């Protein structure tokens, strides 16, 4: 499986991370590395280009978001394809992210 991660609109305050491909246990580290590298800025993960995400992908990204939230950081996920959004909704992940970022 392949995954590309590109940082766009890089600024001191916020970045957009464009994720393209399939996010699973073998590729999710690429996303986590970028989140870790830019942990002091507001990060927006653009998921419009992903075709699949597995439980490891969801879990590890959620874990990173929680860790950043503890230190005042913020990660949002945007432009999620409909069928993946349905999965995230069904898992309650969307609500959790909303609460983490809103607190």
């Amino acid at each position, binding site marked *: 499986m392949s995954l590309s991660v590109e940082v766009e609109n890089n600024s001191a305050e916020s970045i957009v991370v464009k994720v393209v491909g399939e996010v*699973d*246990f073998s590729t999710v580290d690429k996303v986590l590395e970028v989140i870790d590298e830019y942990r002091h800025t507001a990060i927006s993960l653009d998921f419009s280009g992903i*075709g*699949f*995400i*597995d*439980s*490891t992908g*969801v*879990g*590890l990204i*959620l*874990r990173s978001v*929680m*860790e950043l939230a503890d230190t005042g950081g913020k990660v949002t996920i945007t432009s999620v394809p409909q*069928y*993946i959004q*349905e*999965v995230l*909704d*069904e*898992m*309650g*992940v969307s*609500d*959790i992210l909303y609460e983490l970022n809103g607190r």
Partner: protein
Amino acid sequence: MRTNELQHLFEKYLESTESTADEVQAAETIQKILLDDDVPVCDELSCIGMSLPAYRLSGDYYDFIYDEKNGRYWIFIGDVMGKGIPASLLMVMVRSTVRVLTRYSETPSSLVENLNNILLKDMSRLRAFSTLFCGLFDVDSGQFMYTSAGHPSPIFIKKMRMSLLDLKRKGRLLVYYGIGSIVIFQSHFAPVTYLFYVPMGFLKQWMWIKTNMDMRGYNILLRNIDPSI
């Protein structure tokens, strides 16, 4: 593979475990032993479970527990998020707790709520999450109650109707399973009814079937179960 065969393999590995690779293989065998436990026999229900880990070890979990005395058959499927050995360790933690709780729980929602409360501290410290679908089949009445902590919903098939029904339920992952998530659903199992669950790893195919909840999706699902159909 039956449990006694796996037990034999496990004992063989224990005798020869000298390296990390051997330990991983032993852990893999332990997980197989736990997952491939004998499915309890019940005249009213037939259950089959299988796991195909993408990695050598996984966080996949399924379980069938028959409380024969009270005519209750518990069905579980879940997925601890993460990779390899860490996920499999947490899966064992979930499994053990679930098995104890079936003795003291009256409903799926009370079981999952208690499970969440018990695991909350450890799972929070470890930044771990798990999904869990919990179903309870009443052998006498044929009623099926279920709740879900963030696991993709199962598909319900009444064969005579030749159609699929998505038992959709929005829930929250364990550790985030809150009061608002506790919902009991009921459905009735008539003869020749199928209920299919999937672990998270099959999401891509599962979502495809769910978006094609017509004859096409129905036929593909059945062909995957029985190629002769």
